[in-house]
């Protein structure tokens, strides 16, 4: 099977966010594979181990994203592709990303594409379903289980807490939800092997695209931090009195009861 994974490099979830000069400050920040994309990498490796074939991990971004691709290779992916837009694009949105991915996949034989259901930074959750539409593939979002038998694909997906059982066929694009699997940590031999695995670097030029083709449709005009939440009132006294005071405060002061 030809298995592809869409991967994004994101801030570590531990990072505090600050804004300087109107953008998110990234100096000294730790980066990780977007946690939902990690589920996609893990599932891709499992599918390959069961059905044979090859896992290719694709990302769009800067040179530094190589590190997250190497991590995916160390987990067990076979090949990686970095579409480096550092020199060509100043701005982009989901339209931009999908235009690039569409061009990338144009000449590829694909059985399944896996991605995270959302990235924890910009959190639009658009790229998977948008790409499926461009590639004319069925798309199943927020999956928590997948079984492939021949070309038949049986999926369980999370729909606001309910489980929906879906049947579809290959080729398909799926986006991964928490609960799908437990992503492995790269092993030491895995890390050693990853250094020798192929990692191709492309620019949009190589995909016959120029800046105008991928011009975004939306623009960020401002980034700001939410007002700092002031620490509230920690109640005192006997538990019974605290409970009485709390209910009274919720009713009269906060007016939520």
């Amino acid at each position, binding site marked *: 099977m030809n298995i592809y994974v869409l991967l994004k490099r994101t801030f570590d979830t531990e990072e505090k966010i600050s804004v300087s000069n109107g953008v998110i400050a990234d100096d000294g920040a730790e980066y990780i594979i977007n946690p939902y994309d990690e589920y996609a990498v893990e599932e891709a490796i499992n599918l390959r181990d069961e059905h044979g074939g090859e896992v290719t991990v694709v990302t769009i971004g800067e040179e530094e994203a190589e590190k997250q691709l190497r991590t995916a290779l160390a987990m067990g992916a076979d090949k990686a592709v970095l579409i480096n837009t550092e020199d060509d694009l100043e701005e982009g949105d989901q339209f931009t990303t999908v235009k690039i991915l569409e061009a990338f996949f144009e000449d590829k034989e694909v059985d399944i594409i896996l991605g995270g259901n959302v990235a924890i930074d910009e959190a639009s959750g658009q790229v998977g*379903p948008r790409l499926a539409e461009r590639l004319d593939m069925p798309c199943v979002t927020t999956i928590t289980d997948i079984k492939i038998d021949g070309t038949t694909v049986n999926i369980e997906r999370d729909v606001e807490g309910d489980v929906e059982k879906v049947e*579809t066929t290959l080729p398909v694009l799926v986006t991964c939800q*928490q*609960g799908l699997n437990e992503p492995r940590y790269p092993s030491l031999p895995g890390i050693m092997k990853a250094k020798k695995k192929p990692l191709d670097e492309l620019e949009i030029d190589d995909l016959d695209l120029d800046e105008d083709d991928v*011009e975004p449709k939306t623009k960020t005009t401002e980034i700001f931090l939410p007002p700092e939440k002031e620490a*509230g009132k920690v109640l005192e006294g006997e538990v019974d009195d605290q*409970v*009485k005071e*709390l*209910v009274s405060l919720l009713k009269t002061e906060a007016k939520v009861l």
Partner: protein
Amino acid sequence: MSKKVLVIGEAREGSLRNVTFEAIAAANIVSDGGEVVGVLCGDGDLNEMGQEMVYYGASKVITVSNPDLKTYTSDGYAQAVYQVIQDESPEGIIMGHTAIGKDLTPKLASKLESGLISDATEVVAEGGDIVFTRPIYSGKAFEKKVVTEGLVFATIRPNNIPALTRDDSLAGSVSEKEVEISNIRTIIKDILRKSSDGVDLSEAKVIVAGGRGVKSAEGFEPLDKLAEVLGGTVGASRGACDAGYCDYSLQIGQTGKVVTPDLYIACGISGAIQHLAGMSNSKVIVAINKDPEANIFNVADYGIVGDLFDVVPKLIEEIKEMKVNA
């Protein structure tokens, strides 16, 4: 400049979700005095729900009824809504950022080659531009976004943009449209309902959440009861989910759901930064924790230092008593 704006409505178990009315209010801002057109897909008589959208501010509503739209599929709904878009040529589209909204709108935006601003919490008209505010990094920061070219297409987060007041003297046409639906590539075999009360975390007004301090699956029982007396729903921290006390679908945080209820009661939750990202924009936060140093107290409006198994049952009794006396 006034615009024609389409609102994609959404029903759950036979009635419209509140976010549909919030979407009409948002569309009203985007339309700037233009027309707000509702569209509603399903199977059977949708007239009454269409009428309800009118009472909440839609100028007219188009219903699309078809056996293939009985349950949501991306292919089915996309075809139906796309045909309405072809007829109406709207300049804007608004929908709720719900499971269906998240699945359907990127597909439509891609087909229409348009931008899409997902998960907006505020919409304002500012000097000719429609400016959407949306959380990024799970609410650790916010961004303002505008559409630079083409359709003004956005999804809105439930519970953030107030709906207009229902007014049943408002008049507007509700008409039915026939659509052709073919080639649905995903077949829904079964839906296992797990959410007992039908209230999704993202739309809940009150959430009672448990963390590692709940200690076991049974430990959630007092939280369930508290949620019940408050008419709310139960959520959890990653710690509680990882420990197997509850289902991952309840998880609130940077991975998991981001919620903004009116009242959030955190029980036995320490308050890791990833959890705070998912709930710190709740309107009122109550923390119950044994550890006075727990980080959760830094974002809580009201805190009780104590054992949740002692505090929660007393809280249930006190609220019941308040209700009796009210």
